[in-house]
């Protein structure tokens, strides 16, 4: 494993230019999650209409992994059915907890496969999951079933 496989260009790009990182006024649910062992934080707002995630915005502080992962998540989960977004979360979680042994499904996870390398650094897994855990929480509160 090299540092480059952990910090892929796509991650550093999202870190420097995060997507959807301006909290929007329109939302059905807002959640706030943090990572008590490092102090990283995220506030996530989702707007759900007819079981579709129509809008998703966030703000937060944290390391490159947590910020980039939240940014990628905010793109992937936008405009798709709640159930589909929850499935994405499950797939990403599996990838992260796979200790580097789980093959990523690029078709499904798209840019999020860039985080495959994180799975080899157990201490960073929770960074990559911060945004996704907030997403899951928000969608379940917004009425998604799981």
């Amino acid at each position, binding site marked *: 494993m090299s540092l480059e496989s952990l910090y892929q260009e796509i991650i550093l790009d999202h870190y420097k230019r995060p997507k959807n990182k301006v909290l929007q006024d329109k939302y059905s649910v807002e959640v706030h999650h*943090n990572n*008590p*062992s490092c102090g990283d934080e995220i506030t996530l707002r989702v707007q759900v209409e007819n079981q579709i995630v129509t809008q998703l915005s966030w703000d937060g502080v944290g390391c490159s992994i947590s910020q980039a992962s939240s940014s990628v998540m905010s793109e992937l989960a936008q405009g798709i059915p709640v159930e589909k977004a929850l499935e994405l979360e499950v797939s990403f979680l599996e990838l992260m907890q796979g200790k580097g042994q789980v093959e990523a499904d690029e078709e499904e996870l798209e840019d999020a496969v860039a985080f495959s390398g994180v799975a080899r*650094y*157990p*201490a*960073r897994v929770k960074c990559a999951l911060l945004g996704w855990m907030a997403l899951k929480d928000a969608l379940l509160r917004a009425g998604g079933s799981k």
Partner: protein
Amino acid sequence: MALLDTNLIRQDFPILGRTVRNGKKLVYLDNAATSQKPIVVLDAERNFYLNHNAAAHRGAHLLAEEATDAFEGARAIVADFISAQSSEIIFTKSATESINVVSYGFSNHLSKHDPFYIGAEHNIVVTQLEHHANLLPWQQLAKRSGAKLSWLGITADAQIDISNIDSVINDKTKIVAITHQSNVSGAITQLEPIVKRAREVGAMILLDACQSVPHMPVDVNKLNVDFLTYSGHKAVGPTGVGVLWGRSELLEKMEPMITGGSMIDSATIESATWAKAPKKFEAGVPNMAQAVGLGAALNYLTKIGMEKIHQHEELLTERALKGLQDISGVEIIGSKSSLNRGSAISFTLEGVHPHDVGQVLDDYGIAVRTGHHCAWPLMQELKLNATTRASFYLYNTPEEVDIFLDGVREVKKFFKV
């Protein structure tokens, strides 16, 4: 039923080859106090320190990752050993701490709807044969909360007396704290009627499994209790580590006794919120090496087989009980049959004080325990000041039982009784 291959097993415990008191072979029969440790346990601890030592859950570096893996790996072993979930396993320093943790979980400062709310209207039920570790914390809780301390008495053969269970355990009862096996009489508690009654009235149940988990198969799913605890050092594990198992739903609602680092969800200078169990109950840099050592200890026991260990002890116990009954003046506390009985055998010898019995046995290399065994209320009930106690484990042999019996006869000779 068959005996274990103790020749093989004893090679794992080098201390058993030691001599004491002018070259006598050590005959270690103080296992109910603490057990000896196999080399694999010492090696596991040493390997942790020599190769992976770092603060678990606290660093982004490789050693911290490895230390975390080792520590959490140990938790998984501990969970498996009693068929529990890892998230329900809390590492403490000892069973004593574990019981105190639960006793502090109860408080009269909580809302009356909280399962851990306790007040003057409630009672706490213990038994007369509890070890001080499973009595004093409840006395203190009673004092703090105003709740009443009640207890089940004992039968003629030093078992828990359940004849008045319906009045002692009643709808005011918050918790029943009870031993799984007496460290004095060896009696194995017949849990079913007690658990049934506690469930009827909605009381929680804590099981002191210090003398059972190291000696026989225990499955928390079959016990139907809420908390269970034991100490690593009695289960061929290191000193300085204990286990508290609790039901997830309850751990989630229970307040921690000890607060500090790494058990928070958030903290400001004025207040803090807690992380989920087990972290909530493990403030501070944990006893990592000891947890790892306990993991190795339980793997060792599992490899030998808990059912086999139990049977081995039953055979030794039977031999000892029989032999002791053949010595006039010996009075055994509790059951004289090895059925439903662990290997702790307490007895008195007419005309010789237990200390003096122990002293003479020690001179023959035989290590037993004398005194009240931290169960003073039971002694008071039995009208005794002290007893002598022999207790066996997987590495003890029938020959050692015989040396012990010979020793008791020597005591009689020495004191001319």
